[in-house]
């Protein structure tokens, strides 16, 4: 958290948030191990995530799904005693390297949490949060980008009239889409979603799933879910985790219809989990 944002603030204001063409948001995880103190929870995770696709991470509770994606944006570093070894490449760059600008990394990799986490401010300020943090935009452009992000998160029509109401006053599903809009506003290449619909009602869940389908045209989505139907509905590829190891990875349809490992088959047919 000590990295200085000079590289971003130093850029001319007119540069704006424009993703570079070469960035497709492809992720390559190599030999990732993760430890809580001396307790190892991830073992030699190796995973290829193609850019502009939806990858679902499934597995029983406590198998390390969330821990795995919390390494991608290095959010685990907020906590003492958590550490990892291995490499994660985002568009060819090892994001676990010590020279990586954490702040820029977290602009490029957004994260949605299990519980909706709107900040204690208005709907508008929530979405403008990242834009104000990373760029110095004139007011009119800020307003445009907030509108774009809310439209991108399929929330604009519902909140257009209450942009200056507190974000916490929205419904649970709307709050989660507000968080998605907040993440989208800074035009990330990757969106990590940690069981984003587990606290959302069925109607809200359907909206978020539909949204994920549209988002993959612009960015890479990695979604942790304990809901196998959800994984089957929305993902292109699926990785099955068990006890901190990646048991099987593949095209979602193939993995669900014809799993190659006994453990995968047992899990997806509901024999445990």
């Amino acid at each position, binding site marked *: 958290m000590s990295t200085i944002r000079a590289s971003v603030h130093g850029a001319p204001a007119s540069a704006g948030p424009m993703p570079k063409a070469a960035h497709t948001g492809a992720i390559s995880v190599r030999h990732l191990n993760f430890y809580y103190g001396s307790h190892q929870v991830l073992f030699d995770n190796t995973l290829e995530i193609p850019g502009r696709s939806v990858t679902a991470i499934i597995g029983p509770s406590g198998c390390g799904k969330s821990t795995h994606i919390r390494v991608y944006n290095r959010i685990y570093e907020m906590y003492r005693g958590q550490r990892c070894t291995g490499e994660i490449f985002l568009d060819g760059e090892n994001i676990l390297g010590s020279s990586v600008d954490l702040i820029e990394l977290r602009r490029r990799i957004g*994260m949605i949490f299990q*519980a909706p*986490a709107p*900040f204690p401010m208005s709907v508008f300020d929530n979405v403008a949060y990242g834009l104000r*943090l*990373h760029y110095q935009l004139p007011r009119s452009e800020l307003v445009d980008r907030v509108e774009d992000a809310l439209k991108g998160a399929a929330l604009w029509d519902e909140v257009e009239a209450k942009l200056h109401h507190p974000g916490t*006053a929205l419904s649970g599903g709307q709050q989660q889409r507000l968080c998605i809009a907040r993440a989208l506003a800074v035009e990330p290449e990757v969106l990590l979603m940690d069981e984003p619909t587990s606290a959302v009602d069925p109607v809200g869940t359907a909206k978020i799933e539909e949204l994920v389908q549209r988002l993959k045209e612009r960015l890479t989505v990695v979604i942790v879910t304990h809901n196998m139907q959800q994984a089957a509905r929305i993902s292109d590829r699926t990785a099955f985790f068990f006890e901190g190891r990646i048991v099987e990875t593949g095209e979602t349809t193939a993995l669900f219809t014809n799993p190659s490992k006994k453990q995968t088959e047992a899990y997806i047919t509901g024999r445990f989990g």
Partner: protein
Amino acid sequence: MPFGRSKRASMGLPLSKTGVRRGDALFHGAAVAAAALVPVLMAGLFVELAYGSRLSLEKFGFGFLVSAAWNPVTGNYGAASSIYGSLVSTAMALIIAIPLSLFIALFLVELAPPRLARPVSGAIELLAAIPSIIYGMWGLFVLAPFLADHVEPALQAAFGHIPVIRALFAGPPMGIGMLPAGLILALMVLPFTTALMRDVLQLVPPVLKEAAAGMGSTTWEVFRKVMIPYGRRGLIGAGFLGLSRAIGETMAVTFVIGNSHSISASLLASGNTIASTLANEFTEASDPLYLSALIELGLVLLVMTFLFQVAGHLWLSRLGRKTGGGQ
């Protein structure tokens, strides 16, 4: 079995129920009586003070609040210098203590490793337990000479040439006056506001901090833009609690403020507060009007404290309506 059960129901239940009802009524009455004690005491205190100050109220009327005169020989009394001193010393204490408390609380909650946070927390709570007379003696024998020898001359050297601000540091550096009073009060308020703010900040949900950090915020930005807004109601409440403590603090202030009935723009000049005047002069108040004026000072302090509390509540309820979230 069914027989036994119905027997017990028909015989035992009516009896035990009346027992419960009687006990409940007693409990209800006791709770109401205990709760009623508070407003009754408050009203009694107010009436007693108003009655005790009737001589002064009749003689000076509203002028008591705006007159800075305080002359037991001619029998002319005014509260202005004491009110001024109370407000200025309290404001100084809060200006120093509140930002400092916030930073200490942030350090304890977010930055300090547990093996450091615990002893620092303990030390802060210990500060709160020190009797105020000890603060007063420390202020008079340690802080005041230090201020007179080092800090006040330095302040005069630094600001002595700047117009307007110069007036704040005019006069001889004695180490006794508004400045040490404000500093001592800040030190006394600090442990309370820090402990409260620490508790408020600890209630910020981890997911909110992670979400803010996940957007690319630095630790400072997480603190300023998310944790403070989330906890603002509790933080403001902590500030008001500190204010009530500072405005009523008596002993420590009496030691260092100089106890003169005068209003001076200079922070180096002596002054007084309502509480320090009461502590100093009650034993000397020989004639009824003098005593009555002192009691009216007490009434003024009570009303001021009350008004600050009301203002605090209004502020908080307005905040709650406007922005939602937080506690």
